[in-house]
């Protein structure tokens, strides 16, 4: 082992040694980059490019609506524009921008050198890019989605959207959502596990709390949308009528699945922005945040409550009043945790002395716009009012006040606050302030009057209107304001370019920030910290303003280079005490290759080459196999010196390595997907028209018992393999192989039930939903078999020991999950016909 470190190297020497192993490669090799700063920047830049495109689309729409009977755009193009504008802003701008900011900032805030899974971040970026480009390219070819950003059925069904427009949305958005799920797992594990020493829960920067809770919401919020998209795409491709009412399907099921995602999505967007506010206000008030624990409690409450609001988008769909009241009550409740945060921010401002710098200016814009949007939100939460303005421009105005006020203004503040960390330069102030006022005035001119347009009855999503309805002048004002706002964003872009080129250089911490992101040189080096700090408060730079210089000298944890490895600390989730050294992967082409494999899968589906789509999945499986294989070690190794007198095991020999936690959180997302499927199944039984179905499942009870037994035996065998490994007894690989075999048999049993006992999936929604449940179990049994095969191969190759146990534990967890889901699925398939009438 070779080690270079404290006492032997100057700060410059240490910088050079670390940079040599952490810096991103140039040229074609840049496609292999996994460094979080680079991937984060790519996300951010790409998101802003999509934002500019979405903004241009908005300008085209505003030009069209500027006067009545305007011949500028036809209805077909207008439909594509409003659909793409919403889709781009929500899926290709807002969420990816959050991902990019979190990717870039989280390790810096947490005192780490990178995220838990750098390759997963890179993979997520490529999925986002490929999916986003596909969605936008469809506009160029005139086949862009045109059914609204929420793609309601039956409009988006094959009968009414026969082209590939809707498929572009369903497949493109799902591809992009793969990226979001990856990011969510990444952020949860990183915040909980990849922090610096001493950073206990109560010392985490609030931004980390916000991002942790946002990521957890993404894990639970996105799977219903992915499920809905998968079901609708299957309906369109193969005729399984999940949403077709004449065959027992329910259009309302789509709305439920969409808004189960869609409303939490608003808070998924808002919370990180609120994190920015909670971070910046104490800095510019020159004090510490008031009510830290209250804010944490408020965002947890907000996260849960936001999942109880989805039906407030469906108040006019004929749902009984009592059910509406549940959602109306929850909708009013969210104002309270939001208010708790606003009061905490206000109290912090009052406690300190406000320094009105540029980021703070944007935050004041946020306050005024978002509070106004929040108030109209409370109005819309009241059912009778919502009925009056549903689908009018009032709702358009409200959502823009919430999203631009609650997200865009804080994110612009974030850009100005953290851009110097990237560039090492400060903005050119006069231009920045001009940009702010143009955006602020333009925004309010556009959308304030739009409330009136809505109250006057103008519906959303109409490409033109008659003169003399009272809508002419408000529309003209809105269009004028829209162009002023666009000019503001153009000036903002110019300002960023000027900052990169002519901005004033500074040495360290220009805003007097108190968190670890400012305890590093600027521009931030590729490795973030030459040594990782030991923190003892929430504001380490208040405690020790000289901390950055100490870290640059290598005074802290891991202040050295060992064997050219990329290292960071893993800690106990609650106390922040270091418990392992995480060795991170080097640059790798596997992320982009895996994303390309998925692109083949989605592309084949899009163009109807269904038979070839498994090729993409197969290639992806090969990539994932190689990806996983590259981790771990063939010997337990000794604890390594981690600095500050501490010796720690390497990650593969630790009790809770990040990959283990990642699997758990992936299963949380997966479990939500399955729960949504069960919800859909039950919903169809209870709500959909044309039930009971003409034919239900017939016989096969014995087969179902055998199938369930096979999957239980699979879980038991994998559990036995894990136990044998833990106690270093022989037979581990044998039981692992048995687990794989039982898994294959269980999967075959599910297919046999589908073929022999279940009705065809194309005749009625019952058959389709039954096939979906059984198919879910089959897919998981298949993956489980692969998982066991992989574990056997790893065991034979010497990667598994009682200490290095993750490869033995992971299949056991997977098989247990599969068995539980398959059992639940079989209970639904065989039990519901008995319970609801009809008989099996």
């Amino acid at each position, binding site marked *: 082992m070779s080690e270079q470190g404290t006492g032997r190297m100057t700060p410059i020497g240490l910088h050079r040694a670390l940079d040599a192993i952490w810096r991103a490669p140039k040229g074609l090799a840049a496609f292999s980059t996994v460094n979080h700063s680079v991937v984060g920047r790519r996300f951010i830049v790409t998101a802003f490019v999509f934002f500019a495109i979405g903004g241009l689309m908005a300008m085209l729409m505003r030009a069209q609506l500027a006067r009545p009977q305007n011949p500028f755009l036809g209805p077909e193009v207008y439909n594509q524009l409003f659909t793409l504008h919403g889709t781009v802003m929500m899926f290709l701008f807002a969420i990816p921008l959050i991902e990019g900011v979190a990717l870039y900032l989280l390790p810096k805030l947490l005192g780490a050198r990178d995220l838990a899974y750098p390759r997963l971040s890179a993979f997520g970026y490529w999925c986002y890019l490929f999916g986003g480009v596909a969605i936008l390219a469809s506009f160029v070819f005139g086949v862009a989605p045109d059914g609204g950003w929420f793609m309601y059925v039956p409009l988006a069904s094959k009968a009414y959207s026969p082209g590939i427009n809707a498929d572009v949305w369903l497949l493109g958005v799902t591809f992009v959502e793969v990226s979001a799920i990856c990011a969510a797992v990444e952020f949860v594990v990183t915040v909980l596990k990849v922090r610096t020493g001493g950073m206990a*829960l109560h010392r985490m920067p609030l931004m980390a709390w916000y991002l942790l809770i946002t990521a957890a919401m993404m894990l639970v919020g996105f799977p219903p949308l992915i499920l809905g998209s998968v079901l609708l795409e299957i309906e369109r491709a193969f005729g399984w009528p999940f949403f077709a009412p004449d065959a027992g399907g329910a259009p309302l099921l789509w709305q439920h699945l969409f808004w189960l995602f869609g409303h939490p999505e608003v808070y998924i967007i808002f919370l990180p922005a609120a994190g920015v506010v909670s971070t910046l206000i104490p800095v510019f008030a020159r004090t510490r945040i008031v009510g830290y624990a209250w804010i944490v409690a408020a965002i947890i*409450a907000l996260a849960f409550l936001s999942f109880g609001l989805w039906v407030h988008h469906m108040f006019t769909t004929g749902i009984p009043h009592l*059910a509406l009241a549940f959602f109306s009550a929850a909708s009013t409740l969210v104002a309270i945790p939001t208010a708790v945060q606003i009061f905490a921010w206000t109290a912090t401002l009052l406690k300190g002395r406000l320094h009105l710098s540029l980021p703070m200016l944007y935050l004041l814009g946020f306050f005024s716009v978002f509070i106004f949007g929040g108030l109209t939100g409370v109005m819309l939460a009241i059912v009778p009012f919502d009925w009056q303005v549903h689908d009018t421009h009032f709702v358009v105005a409200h959502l823009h006040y919430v999203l631009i006020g609650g997200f865009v203004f804080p994110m612009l503040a974030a850009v100005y606050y953290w851009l110097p960390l990237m560039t090492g330069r400060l903005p050119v102030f006069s231009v920045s302030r001009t940009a702010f006022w143009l955006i602020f005035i333009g925004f309010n001119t556009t959308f304030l009057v739009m409330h009136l347009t809505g109250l006057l009855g103008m519906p959303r999503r109409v490409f033109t209107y008659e003169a003399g309805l009272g809508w002419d002048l408000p529309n003209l004002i809105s269009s004028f304001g829209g162009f002023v706002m666009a000019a503001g964003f153009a000036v903002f872009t110019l300002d960023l370019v000027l900052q990169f080129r002519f901005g004033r250089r500074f040495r360290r911490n220009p805003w007097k920030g108190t968190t670890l992101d400012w305890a590093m040189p600027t521009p931030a080096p590729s490795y973030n910290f030459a040594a990782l700090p030991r923190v003892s408060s929430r504001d380490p730079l208040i405690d020790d303003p000289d901390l950055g210089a100490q870290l640059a000298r290598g005074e802290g944890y891991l202040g050295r280079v060992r064997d050219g490895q990329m290292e960071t600390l893993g800690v*106990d989730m609650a106390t922040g005490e270091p418990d392992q050294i995480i060795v991170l992967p080097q640059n790798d082409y596997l992320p982009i290759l895996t994303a390309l494999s998925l692109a083949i899968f989605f592309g084949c589906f899009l163009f109807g080459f269904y038979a070839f789509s498994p090729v993409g999945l197969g290639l992806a499986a090969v990539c994932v196999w190689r990806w996983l294989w590259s981790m771990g070690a063939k010997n337990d190794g000794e604890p390594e010196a981690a600095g500050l007198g501490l010796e720690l095991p390497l990650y593969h020999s630790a009790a809770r390595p990040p990959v283990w936690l990642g699997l758990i959180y992936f299963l949380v997302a997966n479990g939500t997907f399955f729960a949504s499927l069960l919800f859909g199944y039950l919903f169809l039984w209870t709500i959909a028209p044309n039930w009971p179905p003409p034919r239900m499942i017939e016989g096969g009870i014995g087969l179902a018992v055998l199938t369930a037994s096979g999957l239980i035996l699979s879980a038991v065998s994998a559990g036995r393999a894990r136990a044998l490994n833990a106690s270093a007894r022989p037979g581990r690989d044998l039981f692992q192989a048995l687990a794989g075999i039982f898994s294959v048999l269980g999967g075959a049993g599910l297919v046999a039930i589908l073929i022999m006992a279940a009705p065809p999936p194309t005749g009625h929604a019952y058959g389709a939903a039954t096939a979906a449940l059984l198919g879910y179990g089959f897919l998981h049994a298949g993956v489980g078999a692969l998982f066991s095969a992989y574990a056997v191969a790893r065991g034979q190759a010497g990667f598994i020991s009682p200490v290095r146990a993750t490869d033995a534990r992971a299949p056991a967890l997977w098989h247990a999950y599969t068995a539980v889901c398959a059992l639940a699925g079989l209970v639904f398939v065989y039990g519901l016909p008995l319970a609801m009438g009809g008989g099996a």
Partner: protein
Amino acid sequence: MSGDGRFSGLNLLWLVAGFTVWSSGFVLLYGVHAIGCRAGWPGMELGPLTVQRAVLLAIWAAHLAAGLALFVPLHSAAKRWTGPAGDFLKGASALVTLAALVSTLWIGAPVLFLETCR
């Protein structure tokens, strides 16, 4: 060891326990309400109530009781949380659990007086 107290990461689940009960109540109220409407429970009487309202009230009451009862094990667990990290966890968990209880009270209240299936 920094004196921050030593407790398992599983203790973090106390931060979400209260609202997990709330979520269960919310989902059951909404789901059972739909099932009851389909099954004709509003037409079946159970003493002074309809079966539909009685079932919904029972769900609501059970979740209120569960939300309230959570404070007992939370209090016991919190005694073992020491140091500043423990104090933070105690305070935040108590706040969230209380907020969840009040939220359960609020969202279920319409069961008391609204028509159930119209």
